[in-house]
C-alpha cells in the first residue's frame, strides 16, 4: 500500500503520522510545494518577532523524524493528478504512483486587484521565503504598511511592531478582524493598537501603489498617501485548487469531500485549508482555514485511508488572537442567531469584553477580549450543546461565570 500526500504543512504531516501509526507496513510519501522541509506557517510571526529561530517553525523538531517513521519527503510541486492511472505528476515531469492519495495542498494568499501590488517591496507574509524577505526589509525604524487587519494581518501586525518598524495598517472594514470580532471588540482592539503605537486606518483601502526609488508610495482611498519601504499584503487566502482542473475532482469553495474526507473520486482524500467543511453552527459549507479543523480533517482522512472508519462531524469556527498583549477569541455564532438571547459584559477602560450568544437553552457563540483564563470551555459549552438549565440565567446575569457553568453542568451541579 502506497499512501501519497500532496502537501507538507500541518494537515500533511498529521496525516502521515496517523497513517504510519495505523498502517505500520505501508509506504508513505509526502510531496512539498515549496522546496522547504515540512513547516508550520502559523509559527512564522514568532520568528519575525524574535521569539524563535527559523528552525522552530519546522514540523517536528526531532532530528531524523521522517526517516525514523520511514516517511519519504519529496520536492514538488505536484502539477497534475491522473486519477485514471493513479499517479501524480511533479514539476519537471516525474510521476509518483499511489494507491491512496491525500490532497493537503493548502491555500495561497489573495492579491487584490490593486495597481502596483507586483512591485518589488510588496510582499505577502505566507511562506518561509516571504518571511526571509520581510526579515531583510522590516528593520527597526523602517516605514512599513500592512494591507489588511483580518486574522492573519493582525498576527503579522504584532510581529512587525515588535521588530520596531513604523507601522500603518490599512483595513477596508469598519473595524479590526471584522470576520471574527463585533464592532465593540474590533473597535477596542483598534484603540489598543493605536495606544501601542500602530497607526490603524479602518474604512480605508489602498487605491494604488507606485514606485518611489527604493521606496513605495502607497495611495489610499482617502486621498492620503504613505511612503514605505515595505508593503505587506494580508487580504485573505484561497484554496490551491488550480492544479486540480481537469482531474475530475469536484471543487466548490474548496475541494468537496464526504464525511470520510473522501473527494468525489475513489481513493482520493483531502484535508486542510484546501477543503470545504460543514459548519456545525450555520449548517452551511465553507472553507475554515483554522488549525483545529485542519488537524481533524487530517486525522479522519488518514484513518479512512488506513482502512479504518472515521467520520468528520463538522467544524466549529474558533479563533484566538494575541495582538500586542491583548487576547481576543471568538467561537461559533459569535454574532448571534438574530433571534436568540445575548449576554454582554464590557469594561472598555480595562479592555475586557465578553459576549455570549444563546439559542434556547444552549450557548451557540461567544467572543472574549482580555480574558485569557479557561476560554476553552466556550468550545466545550457550544460544541457539546450542553443544556444550561439554571446556568443560562446566571450567565445572562454574569457572563464571567462561564467556566463555573461548564464545570457545574458537567459535574451535576445544575
Amino acid at each position, binding site marked *: 500500500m502506497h499512501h501519497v500526500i500532496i502537501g507538507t504543512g500541518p494537515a500533511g504531516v498529521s496525516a502521515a503520522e496517523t497513517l504510519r501509526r495505523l498502517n505500520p507496513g505501508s509506504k508513505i510519501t509526502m510531496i512539498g510545494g515549496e522546496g522547504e522541509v515540512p513547516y508550520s506557517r502559523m509559527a512564522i510571526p514568532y520568528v519575525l518577532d524574535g521569539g524563535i529561530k527559523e528552525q522552530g517553525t519546522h514540523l517536528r523538531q526531532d532530528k531524523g523524524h521522517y526517516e525514523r517513521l520511514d516517511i519519504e519527503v519529496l520536492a514538488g510541486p505536484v502539477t497534475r493528478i491522473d486519477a485514471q492511472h493513479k499517479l501524480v505528476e511533479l514539476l519537471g515531469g516525474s510521476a509518483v504512483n499511489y494507491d491512496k492519495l491525500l490532497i493537503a495542498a493548502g491555500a495561497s494568499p489573495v492579491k487584490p486587484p490593486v495597481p502596483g501590488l507586483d512591485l518589488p517591496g510588496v510582499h505577502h507574509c505566507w511562506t518561509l521565503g516571504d518571511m526571509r524577505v520581510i526579515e531583510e526589509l522590516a528593520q527597526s525604524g523602517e516605514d512599513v504598511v500592512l494591507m489588511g487587519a483580518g486574522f492573519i494581518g493582525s498576527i503579522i501586525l504584532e510581529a512587525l511592531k515588535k521588530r520596531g518598524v513604523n507601522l500603518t495598517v490599512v483595513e477596508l472594514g469598519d473595524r479590526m478582524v471584522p470576520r471574527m470580532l463585533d464592532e465593540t471588540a474590533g473597535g477596542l482592539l483598534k484603540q489598543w493598537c493605536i495606544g501601542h503605537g500602530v497607526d490603524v486606518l479602518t474604512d480605508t483601502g489602498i487605491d494604488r501603489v507606485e514606485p518611489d526609488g527604493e521606496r513605495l508610495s502607497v495611495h489610499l482611498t482617502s486621498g492620503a498617501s504613505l511612503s514605505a519601504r515595505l508593503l505587506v499584503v494580508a487580504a485573505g487566502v484561497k484554496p490551491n485548487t488550480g492544479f486540480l482542473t481537469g482531474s475530475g475532482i469536484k471543487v466548490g469553495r474548496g475541494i468537496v469531500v464526504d464525511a470520510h474526507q473522501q473527494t468525489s473520486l475513489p481513493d482520493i482524500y483531502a484535508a486542510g485549508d484546501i477543503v470545504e467543511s460543514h459548519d456545525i453552527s450555520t449548517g452551511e459549507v465553507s472553507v475554515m482555514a483554522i488549525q483545529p479543523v485542519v488537524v481533524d480533517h487530517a486525522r479522519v482522512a488518514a484513518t479512512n485511508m488506513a482502512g*479504518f472508519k*472515521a467520520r468528520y462531524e463538522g467544524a466549529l469556527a474558533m479563533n*484566538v488572537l494575541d495582538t500586542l498583549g491583548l487576547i481576543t477569541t471568538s467561537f461559533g455564532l459569535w454574532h448571534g442567531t438574530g433571534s436568540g438571547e445575548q449576554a454582554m459584559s464590557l469594561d472598555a477602560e480595562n479592555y475586557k469584553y465578553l459576549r455570549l450568544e444563546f439559542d434556547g437553552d444552549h450557548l451557540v457563540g461567544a467572543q472574549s477580549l482580555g480574558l*485569557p483564563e479557561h476560554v476553552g470551555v466556550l*468550545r466545550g459549552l457550544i*460544541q*457539546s450543546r450542553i443544556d444550561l438549565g439554571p446556568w443560562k440565567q446566571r450567565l445572562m446575569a454574569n457572563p464571567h461565570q462561564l*467556566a463555573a457553568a*461548564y464545570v457545574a453542568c458537567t459535574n451535576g451541579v445544575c
Partner: protein
Amino acid sequence: MQKALAIDAGKCTGCKQCELACSFEHEGIFNVVRSRIRVFIFEEEARFVPYTCTQCDQAWCMQVCPVGAITSDPMSGVKSVNAATCVGCKVCTIACPFGTINYNAGSGKVEKCDLCGGDPACARECPTDAITFIDAGLAGYAKMQDWAARTDTAPQAAS
C-alpha cells in the same frame, strides 16, 4: 499501569490546599491564581468541585499544536508542554473544550497539569482525599471522558 487523578467532589471542603500546593510545586510561590488545578465553589448548592486536566485520550491540545510542543508520555499518558518549543500561539487554549490549558503572559507559554512528574502535589496535600492519585481504570474519569466524546468531531479509529 497508568495512574490518574481521581476527584471525588463530594469530599471536597473548598480549602484550596490543592491550589496552593500546585502553585508552589510549579511556580515556587503560594498563589492560587497560578495553580493548574482550580476549586470551583458553588455556594448556593454548597458544592465544591476541584477541576483540572484529565489527560484525555482526545488530547486536542496536543493534536492541534502547530509546532508539536505538546507530547504524550507513552508510559504515563501525561500530556505535557515543552516550553522551549511552545511559541505561545494559544490555539490549544481554544481547542481544549475543558479550558484546562491556559496561557501564562509572564512566560509567554501555555501551561497545564503535568501530574507533577508522577507525584501530584494536589493529591498529596488534599486533607480529605477528595483528590487521590490511583490506577487510571479506577479513577472514574468516565464522566469527563463522556463529555470529551460529545465534543469530539473526529473520533479515533477503533484500532
